[in-house]
């Protein structure tokens, strides 16, 4: 009896608690999802603690020890300037994850609000305008547009006096804006079915205002699909940052970024310094695979109805 009372008092907490343990046990049941979660956590750990755990300074030039193959003091060898590849890899996790996470955070509010409003007022003029606008942005391949915009804006930091817009911030904004159409469409799909459901009609007859219906009732039902998309889009951001840096439009040398390291490694294809080429590519691949596996597992747990994820190319 006493237990029951406690349950009632802490109902809210307990519900969340049950949800979390359910979620974790479901995640533990999928080996691939667990692996993905592990990789994601590991990469965030590396990115955050790189200054403390990296064995060397990533930009420290040490010419006598240049182009060393992997050995005990340099686990992944050294590059042309004698910089430690492992340390540069750890530091390189930073721009990748920053771009990946921040771009999603920028794109999410816009995508969610547009999708919610268009979905809730389905059939109205507002919906037509909003969804057509997203279709126009979606009519151009994302990577090409990102490359073109960053290229046109130029890679040099823009100084506004009180604030300097670095190239990374530019990439974050460009990607974030390009994420909006996709997010809007997926939120729209959920919101438009919720908007005609019985419980929403019941709430309407109770006199609840549209604003609180949209953000109080419809939004929570969209959150699972948004979570899945956010995870998969982060993987896309990591890939995009690496790609832009690889063609010289992202992080600028001598700063460490996986794409920059790969583009420097291009010069050594014919001379056989395989470690310069192998490890940065492996880092990108494992990170992206980790986010994708984690995102797929999230989708299977949270949102098994929607099979497809975002397109990030």
């Amino acid at each position: 009896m006493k237990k029951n009372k406690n349950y009632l008092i802490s109902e809210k907490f307990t519900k969340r608690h049950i949800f979390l343990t359910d979620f974790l046990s479901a995640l533990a049941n999928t080996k691939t999802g667990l692996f993905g979660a592990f990789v994601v956590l590991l990469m965030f750990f590396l990115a955050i603690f790189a200054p403390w755990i990296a064995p060397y300074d990533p930009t420290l030039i040490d010419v006598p020890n240049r182009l060393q193959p992997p050995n005990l003091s340099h686990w992944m060898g050294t590059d042309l300037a004698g910089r430690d590849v492992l340390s540069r890899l750890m530091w390189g996790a930073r721009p990748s994850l920053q771009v990946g996470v921040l771009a999603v955070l920028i794109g999410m509010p816009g995508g969610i609000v547009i999708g919610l409003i268009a979905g809730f007022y389905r059939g109205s003029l507002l919906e037509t305008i909003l969804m057509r606008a997203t279709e126009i942005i979606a009519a151009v391949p994302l990577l090409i547009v990102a490359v073109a915009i960053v290229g046109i804006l130029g890679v040099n930091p823009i100084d506004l006096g009180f604030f300097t817009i670095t190239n990374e911030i530019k990439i974050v904004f460009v990607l974030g804006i390009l994420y909006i159409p996709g997010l809007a469409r997926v939120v729209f799909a959920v919101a438009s079915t919720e908007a005609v459901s019985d419980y929403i009609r019941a709430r309407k007859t109770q006199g609840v205002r549209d604003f609180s219906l949209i953000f109080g009732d419809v939004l929570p039902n969209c959150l699972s699909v948004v979570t899945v998309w956010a995870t998969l889009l982060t993987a896309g951001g990591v890939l995009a940052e690496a790609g832009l840096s690889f063609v010289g439009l992202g992080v600028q040398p001598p700063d460490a970024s996986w794409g920059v390291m790969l583009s420097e490694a291009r010069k050594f294809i014919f001379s056989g310094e395989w470690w310069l080429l192998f490890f940065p590519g492996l880092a990108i691949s494992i990170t992206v695979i980790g986010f994708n596996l984690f995102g797929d597992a999230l989708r299977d747990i949270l949102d098994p109805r929607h099979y497809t994820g975002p397109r990030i190319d």
Partner: protein
Amino acid sequence: MWLILRRASFSVFALFIISFLLFLLTNVVPGSPASAVLDVDASLEEILSWEREHNLHLPVTEQYWIWLCQTLSGDLGESFITDRDLATEIKDTLPITLEWVSLGFGLAIIVGIPLGVASALNPNSWIDHIARVVAMTGISVPDYWIALMLISFVSVGLGWFPPGGHTPLSAGIIPHIKSLVLPVITLSLHYTAVFSRYTRSSMLDVLSQDYIRTARAMGLGRIRIWIYALKNSLPPVINVGAMSFGFSFGHALFIEHVFGIAGLSLSLLNAINELDYPMIQLNVLIVTIIFILANLSADCLNFLINPRLRRQT
């Protein structure tokens, strides 16, 4: 039929908007392209006269109008940098990219769709596991890294194929094919993954439907059921495929960069680095047109296979 006409007219509208947005973007960037084209010590008069020559002193809307009239009358304009006629430039680059991208894409369809079908028909079998591993690595591993690894192992290590460049057909058919093999394989790896992933999920979705169960209960042959299921699971795959074909020009950007193929995507990248605005605008527009055409043909194809769509209109 009306549906397709409506889509087509909307696409044309989208093209106008996108081309205008590109114009706007090149105009909001601080600094004149003249500084990128002319010498550093060019005088103010020289810059002004150069800008006047290229109509850059006019307001954006007027510039856009002039450009639109010229383009529609068939005059694509000249490059800022090389002063070459853009039409001849495109005539050189577009066929190269179209050829190898289509080959890679075709290969991906031939391998990816059967792989997806096989894995959907035999869930959790060895072929399903292979298909899922291929799908995960294909969408996660950056293609420029795959390209670099192929060059270093297959061209440099084994010496089977040239490490880069594009040999035209006029130099003999064998060297021509040899120069295409590695880029085609690189691109097809990614899209094999995309096709097998989407075919698998769409096919699984159809196979779990009631009418398939009914067909089974009625004693229809296995092969026949598979054919029915495949036919009904193709429309989403076709839509994704069409989008992917447009996106593949974004991937081509990196692959052409690595292999040094003088195609459309590489010329876009070069134009970006040289701030050659007319070239950037035209290239992005061509990719957009290809993207839109691919989507339209997907609509037509779906219209042919799916009788439900025909009845609706």
